[in-house]
């Protein structure tokens, strides 16, 4: 007797076709974040002591605004994947685990929304 559903049997994929997606997304975002982190460090160092107007000028530059959005959004995506792995590894209680997964996603989406809103407001939409 098989425990597979008829649909699952018909698709014939076993457990494959989604197993590596988490791993792969984690690596792709990691590679993307390497040059972005370098850019962030150079920018942060350059903005030391900058006036409020100077910071706005920096973020009004479209290249800086786009790179900042890219760093925050890709960083948050990478963070969601990483924290998910940590939660699944260390939290045995199913209910608490589910709760922390929701916290993870809510935190990421809230920060993503706030950063996009802030950048759009600075750029002047």
């Amino acid at each position, binding site marked *: 007797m098989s425990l597979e559903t008829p649909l699952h049997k018909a698709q014939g994929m076993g457990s494959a076709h989604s197993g590596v997606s988490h791993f792969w997304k984690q*690596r792709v975002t*990691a*590679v993307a*974040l*390497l040059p972005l*982190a370098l850019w962030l*460090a150079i*920018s942060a*160092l*350059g*903005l*030391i*002591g*900058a*006036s*409020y107007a*100077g*910071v*706005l000028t*920096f*973020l009004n530059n479209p290249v800086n605004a786009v790179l*900042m959005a890219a*760093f*925050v959004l890709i*960083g*948050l995506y990478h*963070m969601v994947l*990483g*924290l998910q792995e*940590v939660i699944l590894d260390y939290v045995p209680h199913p209910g608490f685990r589910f709760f922390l997964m929701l916290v993870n996603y809510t*935190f990421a989406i809230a*920060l993503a929304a*706030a*950063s996009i*809103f*802030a*950048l759009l*407001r*600075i750029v002047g939409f």
Partner: protein
Amino acid sequence: MAENPQKLAARPLSPFVTIFRWPITMATSIVHRATGVGLAGGLLVLVWWLVAAASGPEAYGFFIDIVQTTLGQLVLFGFAWALAFHAVNGVRHLAWDLGYGFTVKTADLTGIVVIVLSLVLAIGVFVLAYTGHGGYYQ
């Protein structure tokens, strides 16, 4: 076999984190996770900086005031080192994913390189900042 359960119960448990002297590879692996979790807080501070900049000079001044305290600078240094470590050790992980650097000798060596390089990068950035080499985007 089951004649003396007390004796069975007293047998040693398998060794755990608290018993081992940490090998380099184990330490870097644990620190990679810890810095990753910590950098979630780093993203929170970065987004706070963006929102403060978008909110006006008062909110921005409040952010700068807090960041300029000794505690603020220590936290910033922590994030800088965490980012440096996670990035450099991340490259080490990517090399492993491609199948390179798996011998014990190489893994130990790259582990030491990662620890030293991350400290050099983080301290280097702060030395540049405190010796007036930052601030070129005025």
